[in-house]
């Protein structure tokens, strides 16, 4: 009997926990229990009885379909995604990820250049070209000049994603499209893993220049910091860009944080 209860729990795991689904589950359990005990009484073995009850359970989708309408009440059913919408959504997510990644990178590179310029000036490398003060001011100017397009990128990527906000209200995928997305998702996995590995390696290695530089010459540690920031910037770009592609797959396939329940909870 535990097998049957477990089976039913599994079947209902992806359903929203409402009063209606709870009652339905209780009813189903009772009904399956009735059948199970009767089969046992007829002389079936434990395994046979459980097997028959489970094989006669049917398809949970049938119930979901019926409940979907009952739960939503008079609301229209969820829109079904067309292939062109799906691919344009994925392209938009990719573009938005690229822009945000680039923006964040610019925000990190800005201070790095500021440090570089002021350090170069401090040690007299820029003598005759610009004064130390000018180098400082120039660094700040460069920083601002980089941050400005970064902010632009953030805002623009926001408007690109905005167009697909309606998808967050829920959607359904036709079977063929789901298969295709799953295929693409699988094909993307090695790329994603590689980008993740590279990003993590870059982060781990990023302090190395600081350490080595400080061993060679304590004064020049600032150069190490510049390289550290550059490496981190690159890593962050990898995380954001590839992460947003991965995210679009997870969103469409309703995996991990995008499962039906998580949707409901939002």
């Amino acid at each position: 009997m535990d097998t049957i209860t477990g089976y039913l729990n599994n079947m209902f795991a992806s359903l929203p926990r409402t009063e209606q689904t709870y009652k339905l589950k209780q009813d189903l359990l009772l009904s399956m229990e009735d059948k199970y005990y009767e089969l046992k009484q007829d002389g079936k073995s434990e395994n046979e009885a459980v097997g028959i009850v489970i094989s006669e359970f049917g398809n949970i989708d049938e119930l979901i379909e019926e409940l979907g309408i009952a739960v939503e009440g008079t609301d229209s059913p969820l829109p079904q995604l067309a292939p062109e919408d799906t691919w344009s959504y994925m392209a938009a997510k990719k573009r938005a990820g690229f822009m945000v990644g680039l923006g964040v990178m610019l925000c990190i590179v800005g201070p790095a250049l500021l440090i570089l310029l002021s350090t170069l000036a401090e040690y007299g490398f820029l003598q005759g070209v610009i004064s130390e003060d000018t180098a400082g001011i120039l660094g700040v100017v460069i920083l601002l000049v980089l941050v400005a397009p970064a902010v632009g990128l953030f805002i623009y990527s926001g408007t690109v994603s905005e167009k697909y906000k309606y998808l967050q209200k829920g959607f359904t995928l036709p079977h063929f499209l789901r298969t295709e997305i799953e295929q693409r998702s699988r094909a993307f996995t090695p790329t994603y893993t590689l980008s993740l590995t590279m990003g993590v390696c870059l982060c781990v290695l990023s302090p190395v220049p600081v350490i080595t530089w400080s061993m060679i010459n304590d004064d020049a540690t600032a150069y190490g910091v510049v390289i550290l920031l550059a490496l981190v910037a690159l890593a962050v770009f990898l995380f954001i860009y590839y992460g947003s592609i991965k995210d679009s797959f997870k969103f469409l396939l309703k995996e991990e944080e995008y499962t039906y329940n998580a949707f409901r909870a939002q």
Partner: protein
Amino acid sequence: MISSDVIRGYNDTLILYMLLDGESYGYEISKNIRKLSDEKYIMKETTLYSAFTRLEKNGYIDSFFLDETFGKRRTYYRITPLGLAYYREKCEEWKVTQEVVNKFIKEL
């Protein structure tokens, strides 16, 4: 054994028929359907309960609880006047369907 695809449009009719003689509950209905069909049709649990949901939503049946002697709480169903009218309609529909399909059935 009949496939569930063939009988899909008549699951509701089968259930309503079982309720014509009075209230009943899930397992009893499915057991009787199986018995009456000479074991040729076994209605799946999900088919049965999605039909209950649909029929109740349409006002063709209503449900109530009955507590059993050993503490179990069972949902019973009974047919409504609206359900009875729907049942008659489906019977008429079946007659026509049968007539039409029969015209295309030939012993070979």
